[in-house]
C-alpha cells in the first residue's frame, strides 16, 4: 500500500490553515509591513539626487562607519569571548555555574536604558572601571570605545546561546579519537570542534551584529554623540526628525532597513545551514 503522503498535500487533514494564515498575515501587515512601508513611501517623495545627498552626507557616512564598524567589532569580540564562555559553561563545572549561565542572558532581559546608565556610570572617568582605565590613558565613556562597550554588552548572549546547544550536542567521541590519535588539544579544537560549531558561531555573530546595529537606548547614554566622531546612525535619524526633515530621516532609516533585511536573510540562511548540519549528525 502506498504510504499516506499527507505531507505532500498543500492543505492537509489539519484544519485552521485559513484562519491561522489569515490572522498571521493581517496582523503582520497592520503592525509591521504597512508602517514600515510608510518609511519607504515618505522617502519616495525625495528625488534620487536628494535621497543620495541625504544618505551620503559626510556626517551620515561617519555615523554608518561608527554604527556598522562598532557593531561588527563588538560582534566579532563576542564571537571569540562568547565561544569561550559557552565552552566554559558546557565543559567545566564550578560553583556558581548555574548562576553564571542564567546571568549570561542579562543583556537580553535588561532594559536598554538601564544598561545605558549603568555602563555610563561604570565606565565614566570617575566610575569603577573607568577610573583605572583613565589612569592608563584609556577613555571609554563618550568615545567610540564607549559605543563599542555598549554594543558588546548587548550582543553578548547571542553567540553564547547559539553555540551552547551545539557544543552540548557535540559528540565527544570525535575529540577523543583525535586525542588518541595524537592530536594536541589545539589541533583537536581547530580541526574537530571548530568546523562543527562554525555554522552556529556565524549565526550567533550575525545575530549579535544585527542587534547591535540598530541599538539606541544603551548606546545613547555612553556615546559622545559628537557628529563625525561618536554619533550613531539612529541618533542621526532622530536629529533629522527634530529638524523637521522627515524625508531625510526616513531616507537614512531606509538605508538601515535595507541593511537589517540583508542581515536577516543572512541569519536565516545560516540557521538553515546549522539545522542541516545538526540533521546530518543524527
Amino acid at each position, binding site marked *: 500500500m502506498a504510504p499516506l503522503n499527507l505531507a505532500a498535500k498543500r492543505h492537509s487533514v489539519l*484544519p485552521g490553515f485559513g484562519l491561522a494564515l489569515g490572522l498571521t498575515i493581517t496582523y503582520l501587515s497592520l503592525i509591521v509591513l504597512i508602517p514600515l512601508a510608510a518609511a519607504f513611501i515618505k522617502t519616495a517623495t525625495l528625488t534620487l539626487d536628494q535621497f543620495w545627498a541625504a544618505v551620503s552626507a559626510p556626517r551620515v557616512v561617519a555615523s554608518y562607519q561608527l554604527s556598522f564598524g562598532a557593531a561588527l567589532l563588538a560582534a566579532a569580540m563576542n564571537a571569540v*569571548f562568547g565561544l569561550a564562555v559557552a565552552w566554559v559553561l558546557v565543559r567545566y*563545572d564550578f560553583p556558581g555555574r548555574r548562576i553564571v549561565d542564567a546571568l549570561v542572558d542579562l543583556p537580553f532581559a*535588561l532594559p536598554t536604558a538601564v544598561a545605558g546608565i549603568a555602563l555610563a556610570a561604570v565606565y565614566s572617568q570617575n566610575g569603577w572601571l573607568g577610573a583605572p582605565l583613565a589612569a592608563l590613558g584609556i577613555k571609554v565613556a563618550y568615545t567610540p570605545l564607549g559605543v563599542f562597550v555598549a554594543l558588546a554588552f548587548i550582543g553578548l548572549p547571542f553567540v553564547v546561546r547559539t553555540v551552547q546547544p551545539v557544543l552540548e550536542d557535540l559528540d565527544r567521541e570525535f575529540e*577523543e579519537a583525535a586525542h588518541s590519535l*595524537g592530536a594536541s588539544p589545539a589541533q583537536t579544537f581547530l580541526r574537530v570542534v571548530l568546523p562543527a560549531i562554525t555554522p552556529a558561531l556565524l549565526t550567533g555573530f550575525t545575530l549579535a551584529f544585527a542587534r547591535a546595529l540598530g541599538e539606541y537606548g544603551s548606546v545613547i547614554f555612553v556615546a559622545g554623540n559628537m557628529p563625525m566622531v561618536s554619533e550613531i546612525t539612529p541618533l542621526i535619524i532622530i536629529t533629522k526628525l527634530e529638524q523637521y526633515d522627515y524625508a531625510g530621516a526616513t531616507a537614512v532609516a531606509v538605508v538601515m532597513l535595507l541593511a537589517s533585511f540583508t542581515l536577516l536573510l543572512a541569519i536565516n540562511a545560516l540557521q538553515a545551514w546549522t539545522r542541516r548540519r545538526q540533521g546530518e549528525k543524527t
Partner: protein
Amino acid sequence: MAVELTASELLHAPRPAARAKALPWAAIAIGLAALSYLALFLFVPLAAVFFEALKKGFGVYLSAISEPDAWSAIRLTLIAAAIAVPLNLVFGVAAAWAIAKFDFPGKSVLVTLIDLPFSVSPVIAGLIYVLVFGLQGWFGPWLAEHDLRIIFAVPGIVLATVFVTFPFVARELIPLMQAQGREEEEAAALLGASGWQTLWRVTLPNVKWGLLYGVILCNARAMGEFGAVSVVSGHVRGLTNTLPLHVEILYNEYQFAAAFACASLLACLALVTLALKSWIETRTKA
C-alpha cells in the same frame, strides 16, 4: 607520537566526565578569560545599578519608587506589557500553527518577515508610527478630527511595544513546532477532533515550555523598551512615561540615586525573568 592501545584498554579507559573536574592550564586560561569578560561587561554594570541606587540610603530609594510619577510610569509599563504580550502570544501561536503544520509557497519569506522587527532599530520603529499616526502623517488629520489620540498617548506606546516584541513568541514556537512534526495533530484530526480541540489538547501542551519561554522574553522586552517608546511618547510626566523613560527623566534631573532606584526595579524584573527562564530550562530537560 601515536599511542598504541589494546582493545580492552580502550574499552576500559576511564571516560572523561561530562564536565572536567581537573583544571589544566588551558582550561584555567579560558575560564579566566571568559569570566573576566563576563565581569567587565555584565556583572560590574549590574552591580553598579544596585550600588548607585542605594548610595543615598534606603529612604531615598523607597521614596523614589513610591513617588506618584514613578507609580504612573510603573502602571503604564505594566499596561503596555499586558496588552502587547497577549496580542503577540495569540499571533505567535497562529503563525507557528500556519508555518509548522502546513506547507505553502512563500513560507520562508513569511518567516523572514516575521523576524523583521527583531533587526529594525527601535528608533525606526517609533518613527514609522509617527509617520502613520502623527498629525502630519497619513491618519493624523482624521484622528485629530475624531479626537482620537494615538501618538503621544498610551495607544501609541502600546503599538510601539507590540512592534518591538512582535517576533518573540513566534520565534520560539516555530522551530519547536516544526521539530515536533504533525503526526500527533493529524492523528487527532483523523480521530475526529476539531481544530480548536487539536490546538488546545494536543499542540499547546507539547509546546507549553517553549510558549512560556517566549512569553517571558516578550514580557521582559516589552517592559524594558526604550528607544521606540521614546520617539512616540510625549514625555508627559505622570501620563505617557514608561518606567525606562522615567529613569531617563530622573537621570536628567540630577536625581541619580532615584534614577538608579527605578532602574533597579527594572533590573530586578530582568533577574526574575532570568530565574524563570532557568527554571523552565530545567523543566524542559527533565
